[in-house]
């Protein structure tokens, strides 16, 4: 077997070597190790709605007192990361009969563009709700997948749209356009919610799936660099010298954490729902990548050119909502936290590197192994991947001047 083939058939020794080389948070380690241990098992199973329905019924029956009935179980589109199914549930909650309550089952495919941990996602959504961020109501977690076939969470369905009904966008919700009146209402909410997330205190919440880094150290960014370097080395189909160079640069230029924040890690337009009439944001979604660390990672991500659209006057709108400087000033005011432009530049390199390794490493790896329900979409991500890689090259050129 050549040196490159080992990624398709990882051995206990190769897995142990990766774990030793890249120390990460405990729950991240469990998730990545599990991915490698099942990689050789062949293609991911086809989505079998009847089987999922049977499992879901048994899963819920073990957690809910009284009769239950599941109706209208059907796959949801949107996103290429996790399998999602909508259903209606008749059940009794705290003595009250609820009929036709809409819920979502979110389940891991065998592999996908990102391999993440359901307990982390469940805890973050619940915590976000506790601090006043609009999120779905969390109900149940199958952390190991023993009952639902794959690790899964069940949460409430939230009404709302991802984009104006008259508009278009690309897969994953990139390229959503708002008019000026919509931006004026949605924009301030987008900033206020981000400020709440970045200023929350983890001590008061059950976040047992997370390791919390210490302020004044580089523990947070070390864990992040190790997490994503490990993912790249586990998943890549071909090495990219620029990616290696970027990792070296990121390791050489990291800074101690100045303020501990909850980092959403995919905070952008396309990852929230809003009510099309009131324009109120009804839910922030996609918490699976969240961690505790430097807020500038979220700022750099949502300011990324790939998420820009063009305003009526031809100017660029970050995350389809703001001029860049307008956003940074409003964020500082809402959060009370300073924006350090050096850190922002550093995290700009980081998010391009992380985005490129997901789209050019993990996405084609999952498609290569026929692991996901969205393999054809994962293959399409190459276009985004090379856009991110070009952005990474340009940001590194600037940073190295």
């Amino acid at each position, binding site marked *: 077997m*050549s*040196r*490159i083939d080992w990624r398709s058939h990882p051995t206990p020794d190769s897995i142990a070597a990766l774990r030793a080389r890249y120390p990460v948070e405990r729950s991240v380690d469990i998730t990545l190790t599990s991915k490698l241990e099942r990689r050789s098992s062949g293609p991911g199973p086809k989505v079998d709605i009847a089987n999922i329905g049977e499992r879901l019924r048994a899963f819920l029956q073990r957690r809910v007192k009284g009769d239950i009935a599941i109706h209208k179980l059907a*796959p*949801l*589109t949107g996103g290429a990361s996790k399998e999602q199914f909508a259903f209606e549930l008749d059940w009794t909650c705290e003595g009250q009969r609820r009929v036709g309550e809409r819920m979502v089952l979110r389940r891991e495919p065998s592999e996908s563009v990102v391999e993440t941990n359901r307990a982390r996602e469940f805890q973050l959504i619940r915590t976000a709700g506790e601090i006043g961020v609009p999120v779905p109501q969390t109900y149940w977690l199958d952390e190991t997948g023993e009952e639902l076939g794959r690790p899964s969470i069940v949460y409430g369905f939230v009404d709302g749209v991802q984009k104006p009904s008259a508009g278009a966008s*690309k*897969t994953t919700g990139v390229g959503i356009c708002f008019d000026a009146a919509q931006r004026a209402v949605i924009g301030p909410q987008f900033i206020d919610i981000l400020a709440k997330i970045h200023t929350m205190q983890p001590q008061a919440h059950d976040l047992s799936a997370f390791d919390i880094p210490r302020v004044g150290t580089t523990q947070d960014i070390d864990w992040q660099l190790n997490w994503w370097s490990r993912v790249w080395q586990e998943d890549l*189909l*071909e*090495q*990219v*010298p*620029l*990616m*290696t*160079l970027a990792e*070296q640069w990121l390791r*050489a230029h990291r800074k101690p954490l100045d303020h501990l924040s909850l980092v959403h890690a995919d905070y952008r337009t396309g990852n929230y729902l809003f009510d099309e009439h009131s324009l109120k944001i009804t839910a922030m979604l996609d918490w699976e990548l969240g961690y505790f660390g430097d807020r500038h990672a979220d700022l750099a991500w949502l300011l990324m*050119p*790939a998420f*820009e659209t063009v305003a009526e006057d031809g100017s660029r709108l970050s995350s389809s909502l703001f001029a860049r400087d307008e956003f940074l000033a409003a964020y500082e005011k809402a959060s009370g936290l300073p924006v350090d432009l050096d850190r922002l530049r550093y995290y700009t390199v980081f998010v391009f590197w992380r985005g490129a390794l997901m789209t050019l490493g993990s996405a084609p790896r999952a498609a290569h192994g026929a692991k996901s*329900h*969205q393999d*054809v*979409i994962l*293959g*399409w991500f*190459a*276009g*985004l991947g*090379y*856009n991110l*890689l*070009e*952005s990474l*090259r340009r940001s*590194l*050129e600037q940073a*190295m001047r």
Partner: protein
Amino acid sequence: MQPGIDLRLRTMMKALADVVMPSIDPGNRMAQEQAAVILGSMQMLIEQIDYAHWYEVVDLKSLVHLAADLERVPGLSLPVEVGAAHETASALAGRWDVTLTELRRASAELREAICGAVEVAATQGRQEIQNAVQRLVLDQSREQLGRERAYVAGTKWDGFPESLQTIEASLQGSRNGVT
């Protein structure tokens, strides 16, 4: 030989667009989205197919040049894998009677070796060596990304229209493009 690959692709696209896609359940948005991406992917294959061999040869030659440049950096001790992969790739890049798979395998081996060399440069500590390696990798990446972005431009994801080339222009513009 007829029908050629491009004609077969076009007939498949016509069937997909005219017959299969209108038959998909309008309520099944995932199926609709995947069908649209399949159609777009087939269009991109038509755009790529004429250049597939040319592309892989230029890609490999570009990596061969980078390996040679790294070998000339004063004071840089390269892993032995670089020399071996460089030699294999050089021999293959000069031939026409090779499959795309062979070219890609040689490219993958050379990429692995080059990335090992970049890591070595970072750990050897001397700043002038690191600077030289950084410059070489960034220069090669600019050219490489010009080709890669052109190759997948059909996805409409590219964010740098001022520097986006056609596939042919990106191959001709490469310093290794003339075979």
